[in-house]
């Protein structure tokens, strides 16, 4: 995990390690919101977490917004609706 990029928080100007569990949790919620089945969700979450981890291996430091964009793009391949929900969940009431 140490080779993965650190996540920079622009507000606090601090860095933290990438949490795959936290990402998986958020992805899971977005998939549930659009009614995907358990099997599809499990597969999608695994794929997206792997895709994001691979991307982070090529970077030294990124922002949490970057991770969200990468994850949303990867999730959109499985479900465009889930990808949209995940990318915009902070903007939704």
């Amino acid at each position: 995990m140490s080779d993965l990029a650190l996540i920079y928080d622009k507000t606090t100007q601090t860095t933290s390690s990438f949490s795959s569990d936290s990402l998986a949790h958020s992805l899971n919620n977005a998939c549930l919101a659009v009614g995907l089945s358990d099997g599809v969700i499990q597969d999608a979450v695994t794929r997206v977490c792997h895709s994001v981890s691979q991307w982070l291996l090529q970077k030294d430091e990124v922002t949490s917004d970057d991770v969200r964009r990468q994850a949303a793009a990867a999730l959109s391949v499985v479900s465009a609706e889930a990808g949209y929900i995940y990318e915009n969940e902070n903007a939704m009431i």
Partner: protein
Amino acid sequence: MAQSGQFDYDLIVIGSGAAGSTAALIATKQKKRVALLEAGTFGGESPNWGDVPTKAMLHAANLYEEARLGNRFGIRSSMLGYNYPSILQWKDKVISRTGAADNRQYYEKNGIATFHGVAHFMSPHEISISRKHLTARNFLIATGSHFATPDIYGIDSITYQTPKTILSLPKVPHSIFIVGSSSEAVEYAQLFAILGSKVYIAERSMRLMPEEDAEVGELIEKHLHSTKDISCLTQTQVASVEKRGLGVRVSYARGNAMRSVQVDEILFANNRVASTDLGLENALVNYTAAGITVNDNLQTSSQHIYAAGGAIDASSPTQVAMLQGRVAAHNMFHKATSQPDSSLIPRITFTNPGIASVGLSENDCIKRDLAINQAVAPLTMIARSNTSDFSNGFVKLITDKKGILLGGTVVAPHAGEIIHEVALAIHAGMSASDLASMQHAFLSWSEAVRVAAGKLAQ
């Protein structure tokens, strides 16, 4: 994060290739504080694995072929051979002689701060490299282009080559399948065919080099097939690849049939994309799949961030990248801006015969609904083709209805030199009759330019 007005540098250049290094050196001569960031090898593509090594290899290969085919001139060459490791050594010598390859110290000596690592924007004025944060008043994105993973079934199971890796092979492959027929793809096809590989070149379009006029693609296809036994697979789509022994089995669709061929190596020369994965969203820089969006001054959607070279158009040749680097460096520090004029950039393919074009092509004129005249002078019409025993080529000139030159294409030995005469004539607003009335030395290849111009002047 930097406070307003307090930046570490006046300019941070991301990428040390043709565009980036040009801009960094210009800015530092103007007493600006400049940092140069590089993720790969300093100097970028052209000297390290692009133009320079390719042309060095092609020079050696062409010499070998000229000598090998010298029997018809009375030259005994039946015992001729080559040593590939020595050719690779020659290539490395050429690279080191440029002084531009892996030249981090050169920039340091010129007062440019250099950083090696993957750069990523954190905010519009702040970038991270190796987890160190740097700020600047202006940025130039000159990240160039890279080769994307082809979207072909089975690609994960094989080791494939790109123009970046192909010249690192320790030996010449017995057979090679080249996907795409761009200028660089045709150069590699000719290089490996001369060195003895069985070459297949696959192109989706109806002819090779579809970006050039139809006559070019048709002539090159005929030439490559008849003189080098290259299999030119036009209207071909690669469907899948599969690892088979030490090689690759390539399946492709051509016409209504699926076919397959076993080769040692497969080279993907058509997947060049602009390198834009550097957190551009954090810097509010707009981009598309084609590259970073810029205005005429090379400014991005963030006014203090400029972009040049392959980052805005993956197919940009080195000379365009250098021009844009110069213009960007000027515009960011001067109120009177300038715009790069890339309308007269010569496009050259260093094959034999060479292929060179400048100005408008016939397709460009059709797209613009321009009324034109055109003339083609085959090399057989000039005396040099007799003395050199070479006739596969032509000069084609295009004028408007008033006879003013708009564009030209040369397929001939030394086409890359001949084309500059045409470029200068277009730049000077000359007519075909002006060009035809100029003296051209007897037995020069350039006589074909006079003949083509003469046809238009009649």
